[in-house]
């Protein structure tokens, strides 16, 4: 009896003291007005960290640059960011933290679709302008009042790939995808779009993103009459798929998604990557664009700055560039950081030239990119080659 009492008391004392420490430490971090707070939540660790890493670097670099030039509306920008490890559950928690503890003015972030989709409800409820850096079309369709995004959708990627297949007279395709959010969403879009392009999915295999080998699935595909293989995924898995395809001696054209549009993929897959086709943002083939392309100067400038500081660019960092500047332009036009006004201005973004394309948003289009913003790219001798 006495012992349980002591224990109970003890628990409470510890509870109270820890709670007090917590609240005190929180009290010291009161909203320091005078800055414009941009919140961000990115996959800085975990399997999707190759998305979050360049995104963060881009945000940090340009926030620094903007502040050096005097900030926005005479105020400095302040970047508050958290790591989600690519996990939806963590994303939900840190976005709550951004909104309720840090009291940010708007959010640019969400490296993966899963983490973005997880926070849409809370962003809508709390009425914070939010520009997502993730791919899934579900983020903006149906249109959510406060949610925008900058990367091309997985649906656009699928459409672009099927267009290319049609040009090459390929009608039977084997699909292989992972079990992540990006993969699954892309998979759904492929299945949905295929009939519209007269494409027949003859095999539909999947793998676990942590798997070490995909030869089993590819062996099954080899036994079908598919004329091309399409792999929707990111991270190390597409590189393994690419190597396994060559190992099994499969000569079919291999398509990847925009999820592999970074130098890392070529490095990992090595020679096996040659001949792989994928849709990608223009950034990776910036030099190959015709000089009259409006994007070219923006791309080259971003690329130069980023590479001078951090090394090879990937399209993912570019999405963060687009997100940040769409937000900054909107704040400038709104003349204040009033959330509703900023939101309205983001929606009015027209003719903004970013790394992903020329953005023309509207009340029913919170992305504002057309299919032409995607470039079809082939890997040739370990380098990107712009097809069209």
């Amino acid at each position, binding site marked *: 009896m006495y012992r349980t009492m002591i224990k109970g008391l003890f628990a409470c004392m510890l509870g109270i003291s820890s709670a007090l420490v917590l609240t005190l430490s929180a009290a010291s971090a009161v909203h320091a007005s005078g800055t414009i707070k941009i919140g961000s939540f990115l996959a*800085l*660790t*975990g*399997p999707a*960290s*190759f998305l979050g*890493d360049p995104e963060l670097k881009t945000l940090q670099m340009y926030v620094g640059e903007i502040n050096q030039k005097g900030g926005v509306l005479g105020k400095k920008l302040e970047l508050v960011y958290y790591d989600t490890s690519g996990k939806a559950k963590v994303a939900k928690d840190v976005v709550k933290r951004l909104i309720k503890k840090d009291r940010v003015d708007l959010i640019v972030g969400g490296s993966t679709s899963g983490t973005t989709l997880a926070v849409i409800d809370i962003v809508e409820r709390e009425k914070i302008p939010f520009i997502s850096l993730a791919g899934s079309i579900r983020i903006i369709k149906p249109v959510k009042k406060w949610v925008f995004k900058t990367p091309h959708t997985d649906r656009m990627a699928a459409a672009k790939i099927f267009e290319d297949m049609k040009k090459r007279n390929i009608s039977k395709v084997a699909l292989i995808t992972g*079990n992540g959010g990006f993969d699954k969403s892309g998979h759904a879009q492929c299945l949905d779009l295929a009939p519209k392009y007269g494409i027949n999915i003859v095999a539909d*295999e*999947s*793998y*676990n993103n*942590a*798997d*070490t*080998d995909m*030869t*089993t*699935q590819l*062996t*099954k595909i080899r*036994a079908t009459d598919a004329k091309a293989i399409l792999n929707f995924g990111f*991270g*190390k898995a597409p*590189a*393994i798929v690419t190597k396994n395809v*060559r*190992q*099994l*001696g499969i000569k079919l054209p291999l398509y990847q998604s925009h999820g592999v549009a970074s130098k*890392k993929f070529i490095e*990992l897959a*090595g*020679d096996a990557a040659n001949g792989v086709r994928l849709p990608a943002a223009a950034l990776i083939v910036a030099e190959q664009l015709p000089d009259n392309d409006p994007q070219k100067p923006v791309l080259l400038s971003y690329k130069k700055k980023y590479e001078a500081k951090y090394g090879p660019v990937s399209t993912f960092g570019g999405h963060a560039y687009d997100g940040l500047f769409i937000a900054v332009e909107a704040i400038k036009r709104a003349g204040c950081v009033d959330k509703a006004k900023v939101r309205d201005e983001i929606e009015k973004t027209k003719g903004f030239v970013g790394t992903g394309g020329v953005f023309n948003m509207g009340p029913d289009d919170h992305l504002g990119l057309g299919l032409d913003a995607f470039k079809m790219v082939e890997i040739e001798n370990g380098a990107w080659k712009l097809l069209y």
Partner: protein
Amino acid sequence: MYEQLLQYLITGITVGSAYALVGLGFAIIYNASDVVNFAQGEFVMIGAMSAIFLNAAGIPYVLSIALAVAITAAVGMALEKFAIEPARNASVVSTIIITIGASILLRGAALLIWGKDIYGLKPFTGEETIHIGPATLLPQNLWVMGCTAVSVFLVKYFFDRTRTGKAILACSYNKRAAYLVGINVKKMLLISYGLSACLGAVAGILIAPITFFTYNAGVMLGLKGFSAAILGGMGNPMGAVAGGLMLGLLESIGAGLISSGYKDAIAFIIILLVLFLKPSGLFGKSSWERV
């Protein structure tokens, strides 16, 4: 049908070999100290990542592999020395949490040292595809199978024939008795952890050219190794090897013949069914409470 099956077998055995080595590591530590070491998967990652980075730093290929194994063994022994030994009176669950803590710590350290990028290792010998009938494999597949077989054989020889190996076995039967007949129990524990870390490192280095590694690639391999050890019967090292190979084959054949999306589920369902029928694993000794 037949041609595909052969390919599934090759894939299954290759992947299963890695599971077998990790499972063997689990079994050795469990035998020596009754601890289920959930940091076993981290040994795999450390082995592979150190080899990759040492090699990239210009150290000759073979030497970098040897060094990587040595580094991992040192990490394993440090784990025993600084985490397991001070907590030798802790309950089984507490030691499990300690090893889980250790795995998080090692992952965190790997993140700081090697960053978050994905890395691959050059294959041991070339990348020319070898054709066996309708199936194909890489030289590295042969290396994986061969080195696993050699490692398993060496471990078996070590426990059956050498003085130290027998001493470790004695510790696993009865620590007090082993101590009383003059066996240095502490040293034996240290050796077990070192050996088990070595096996993890070997597994990692072997499959590094086939798959790729990141700082958190050890988690899934550790989980599979644990499953292998349980499937075979915890505490029976050769059972763990068999369990690993079976798990690899189950996954590969399950994916090939039933569904690739549910292949892991299929493997786990079969493990559960095995446990329901044989509650102490396939080759485990059944034990009952003595009263």
